[in-house]
């Protein structure tokens, strides 16, 4: 398998008053194409920070990240925005959708930004909504569907731009167990079918159990990195 994300000796410090908080302390880890990985650890272990740095939403204090062979540290703000648009899909804990757009428009949004023609992107968006089980809800606004359904829309949108990786930050944190299980099953299925790498930051044991590779962070360092047998 080919490496899709490579983190080299990542360090991230935050200045809080006169104190320096070390969120990441020399994290080196690689992710291969098609992997379904969880990054877990207690609060403050650095899992969200690692995810944000991989997603180019934050810059490391030192170290380097390569996504699809491209070093993020050498990219301009605009290039990083284009990188997120074209290569990275995001699923956040909450507030994922644009409230003025319908479910279908939310899914279409990324491919519309990419300049995909109307017929292609609409067909693709409908197919994705079908895959995440939201057929018939295309014209609803986000406020008119449940939290679990909103997360499914977010997953569909994350895949709509044909990304190399999908980064999910605590995607089940606001969901009940039924909706969590359904979302995890959906993400596993899409990971298998699309071959897109899923990296999920979580402290939810059910999520960790669903992934085929589990990385644990403690105090900003990788303490375990286990792969399940295929």
């Amino acid at each position, binding site marked *: 398998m080919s490496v899709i994300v490579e983190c080299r000796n990542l360090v991230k410090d935050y200045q809080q008053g006169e104190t320096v908080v070390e969120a990441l302390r020399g994290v080196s880890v690689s992710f291969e194409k098609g992997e379904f990985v969880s990054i877990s650890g207690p609060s403050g272990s650095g899992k969200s920070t690692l995810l944000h740095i991989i997603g180019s939403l934050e810059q490391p204090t030192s170290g380097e990240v390569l996504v699809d062979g491209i070093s993020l540290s050498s990219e301009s703000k*605009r290039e990083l925005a284009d990188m*997120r*648009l074209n290569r990275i899909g*995001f699923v*956040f804990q909450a507030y994922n959708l644009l409230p003025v757009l319908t479910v279908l428009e939310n899914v279409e949004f990324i491919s519309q*930004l990419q300049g995909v023609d109307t017929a292609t992107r609409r067909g693709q968006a409908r197919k994705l909504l079908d895959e995440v089980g939201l057929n018939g809800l295309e014209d609803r606004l986000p406020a008119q569907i449940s939290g679990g359904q909103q997360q499914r829309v977010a997953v569909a949108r994350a895949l709509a731009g044909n990304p190399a990786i999908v980064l999910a930050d605590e995607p089940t944190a606001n969901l009940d167990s039924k909706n969590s299980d359904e979302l995890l099953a959906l993400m596993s299925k899409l990971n298998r079918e699309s071959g897109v790498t899923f990296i999920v930051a979580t402290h939810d044991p059910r999520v960790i159990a669903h992934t085929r590779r589990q990385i644990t962070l403690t105090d900003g360092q990788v303490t375990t990195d286990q792969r399940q047998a295929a």
Partner: protein
Amino acid sequence: MNMLRLLFPFAWRNLWRNRRRTLITLLVVSIGVWSILTFNSVIRAWADGSLASSLKNMTAEAQIHARGYLDQPDIAHSFAKPSGNLEKVLDGPLVAHWAPRIRVPAIVQSEYETLPVTLAGIDPGREVGVSFIGEAMAEGRNLDDASDAGVLLGRHLATRLKTEVGKRIVIMANDANGRLVERGARVEGIFAASSEMEDQFVFTGLLPARKLLHVQQQLSEIAVMTPQDIPLAKALAAMQNTAPGLDIEGWATLQPMTRGIHDLTNGFIYIWLWVMFVLIAIGVVNTQLMAVFERTREFGLLQALGFRPSWIVLEVMLEAVQIIGLGVLVGAIGALMTVTALSGGISLSGLGLSAGADFLGVTRVLYPRLDVSEFFVTVVVIWGLGVLTVLWPARRAAGFDAIEAMHSN
């Protein structure tokens, strides 16, 4: 272009997320634009009316004099009636009306009073469209023609002289030889005008005035009005070229006070425009800032999804383009309707302002009108500048840190 097609409806929907705020912004912009355009047209009517009244008060748009007359306006500083090229220009397309005049200082005496005045010998037929006389008769009759030996007095002067139509008065002035000459004349009419005009002028026919002052074909003054579509400067230049020995000046030089008031009024229009624009801009920037800060998390999300900072600026600006554009449109239509409704004239007498209008020498009826080019320039400038003021909140939105924005409440 593709991005505009995506963001235009997106911006429109975002605009109406908070209907109340959007409607208030719309109202602020509409009322601001309406008041700018309506006030502008009323003030412009005031300025035009004031200027027209001033010009009709024996100034006209331009005057021709002998050199030295303006410093010493006596009959010694007179000039021969126009001939040759000057006459051709006066009778040509650059001049709408011109009126020959004798205009000298004089004394008028009744059986009760003796008062200083300006004696104006006129051809009443030529004064039509040049001065107020003829349109302002309050009692009696106007002069019949240039040979009419009767006199016209202002209402106030007649009161001070304790005379009336039908009575005789005596006019005294220095003739061309410097001798004091006099003649008796019958008061044929009383005119009503501004108090200054009523007190200053005594009108008689041009020929009797010449006869009194012992001149043959001489004139003190020619008053000139140009057609509306001819720039005054062009007519002035033509006249000056053909009569280099005469003083030929426009109203702005002859009446610096009138020019000052005219400039001040126009300046006031721009002050009002800027005051209203600043109020509009404060309202729009304020509401757009509120809208931006309310959507901080959303702007963070947009950045995370790959929205370039310039697209965020564009999106916020498009919201401003739409709301200000709509407000400008509503305000402009409102102003157009208001000015059209008022175009028949606003009577200052009806508003109890006639005395003030007379004092200021302004017409008693204002005729507001919208100057088409000024209308469009104002509308476009307000729209353009209004949108530019939103650049600040737009840049703030684009400058949010994505992670901090998404974690904000």
